[in-house]
């Protein structure tokens, strides 16, 4: 993997921010977009923008082919059995809400249990909280180990035969923990529950095989994996999706409409009411082509090396606390003693370094960590060791700056 060649494809990276070359360490929030994706979107709007699945004109056929072609790319990307199992949504949040509102409302009742963990992003927490309130089910949390990992014995103990849904992040957006989804799926299935996987932080960074994981649902977003904003994916096992009712009704998703009743299109279109996110899906398809060309295994290895290097360098700075396990995905969440993460982020921004500061949409996890906010540096295929060196120097500067002004 040649990082310089990759960087050349990301025009946004080649700019100065506050007088310094930009270092973008906020890819866990949203990734940057390579030329192949930008050009694909441009070409769609310039050359064949049209609505899909209707009309007989040439542009409409071209747009439909590209849209459905993108679905096939997604199928291949996560090794789903059929493209009918791939539903385009607005993003991970929409995907998870669809499962909760459709599968959840139909299958969860009073006395049942929904199981999640303390490390969930709000998007994989609040839909289940709401579902529990609406149905009278109980929401249960799998506890975390001190290093921010999950012990399978705790999964065994928390997921009882009363559990109907187990929902878990594949990779934590704060701790970087990679959860043993396949083993958790096995336990969930033994107890008669389905497993819903939030893959927002894994799909961009590692090879995913939904058949190997044996997950029932899996959700991710296009914008975190070099694709456009506003497009996401819900994968679901066909036999489950077939029994589920749509949650949005209107054009595009119907078969026959009569005055007092209607029938739905077949999968996956019954879940895609309204004009779909055509450009977004086609752009996501281009992003998948790009990532596969680089190679997901190479990307994962590169990020692993960057994260391990960052951990090593940060361990040398006194007063820096890093959260999460040593073995982790490509992000590092941390605090500097005596300096609020917002202030850390401002000092780094003055050096041209973009990081995230705040609660990372994971307030229960912040509480578990005993902090109100943290700073996070997250890496992607276009980041380098030299950038980490500059980041470390900037952290030293932040520490020094605040020790002087005090």
């Amino acid at each position, binding site marked *: 993997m040649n990082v310089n060649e990759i960087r050349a494809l990301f025009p946004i990276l080649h700019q100065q921010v506050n007088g310094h070359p930009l270092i973008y360490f906020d890819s866990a929030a949203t990734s940057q977009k390579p030329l192949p994706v930008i050009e694909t979107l441009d070409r769609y709007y310039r050359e064949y923008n049209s609505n899909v699945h209707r009309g007989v004109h040439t542009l409409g056929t071209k747009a439909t082919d590209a849209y459905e072609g993108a679905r096939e790319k997604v199928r291949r990307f996560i090794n789903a059995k059929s493209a009918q199992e791939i539903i385009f949504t607005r993003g991970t949040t929409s995907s998870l809400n669809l499962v909760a509102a459709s599968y959840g409302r139909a299958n969860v009742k009073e006395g049942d249990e929904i199981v999640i963990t303390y490390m969930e992003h709000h998007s994989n927490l609040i839909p289940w909280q709401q579902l529990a309130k609406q149905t009278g089910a109980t929401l249960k949390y799998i506890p975390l180990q001190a290093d921010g990992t999950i012990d399978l014995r705790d999964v065994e103990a928390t997921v009882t035969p009363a559990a109907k849904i187990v929902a878990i992040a594949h990779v934590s957006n704060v701790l970087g923990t990679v959860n043993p989804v396949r083993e958790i799926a096995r336990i969930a299935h033994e107890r008669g529950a389905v497993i819903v996987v939030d893959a927002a932080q894994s799909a961009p960074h590692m090879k995913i095989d939904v058949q190997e994981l044996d997950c029932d649902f899996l959700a991710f977003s296009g914008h975190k994996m070099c694709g456009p904003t506003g497009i996401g994916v819900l994968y679901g096992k066909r036999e489950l999706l077939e029994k589920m009712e749509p949650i949005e009704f209107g054009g595009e998703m119907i078969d026959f409409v009569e005055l007092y009743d209607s029938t739905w299109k077949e999968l996956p279109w019954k879940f895609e009411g309204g004009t779909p996110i055509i450009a977004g899906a086609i752009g996501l398809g281009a992003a998948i082509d790009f990532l596969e060309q680089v190679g997901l295994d190479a990307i994962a290895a590169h990020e692993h090396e960057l994260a391990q290097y960052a951990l090593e360098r940060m361990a040398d700075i006194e007063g820096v606390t890093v959260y999460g396990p040593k073995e982790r995905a490509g992000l590092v969440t941390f605090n500097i003693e005596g300096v*609020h993460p917002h202030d850390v982020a401002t000092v780094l921004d003055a050096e041209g370094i973009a990081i995230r500061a*705040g*609660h990372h949409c994971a307030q229960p996890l*912040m509480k578990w960590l005993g902090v109100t906010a943290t700073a996070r540096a997250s890496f992607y295929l276009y980041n380098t060791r030299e950038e980490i060196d500059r980041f470390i120097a900037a952290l030293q500067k932040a520490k020094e*700056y605040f020790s*002087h*002004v005090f």
Partner: protein
Amino acid sequence: MSSNHPLDQLYRQVIMDHYKNPRNRGVLEGTNVDVNMNNPTCGDRIHLTMKVEDGKVADVKFEGEGCSISMSSASMMTQAIKGKTVEEALRLAHIFSDMIQGKEYDDSVDLGDIEALQGVSKFPARIKCATLAWKALEKGLHNHEHEGR
């Protein structure tokens, strides 16, 4: 620290002093104004308690968690409004809001320490940090006025 660091216009000495030694920190008991507010995008939070008597802010305290800008702003705010009438406090909040957004503001009122926060207007990402305490103040006085009627 040299005074020409680009961050010095944000992190002025008086701001860091209020951050390190917050004035009026704590919770007042038996008050008639009690407001909790947070900034849901970043996790900063403030608990503001005030004793409003005869149209004046007789006493005020704050508790909270957040960055240097949000906490120093809260400290300065309590210092500035203590003893002021409700109208004066609200007017100050209005002036502060204009100043922090980089707008023209009424300079006939002596802002004291608060003026140091003017530099925040050049850091758009931090404006919300500075305004949290003042929004809590406005909400508290607004609620008080309505309950009183």
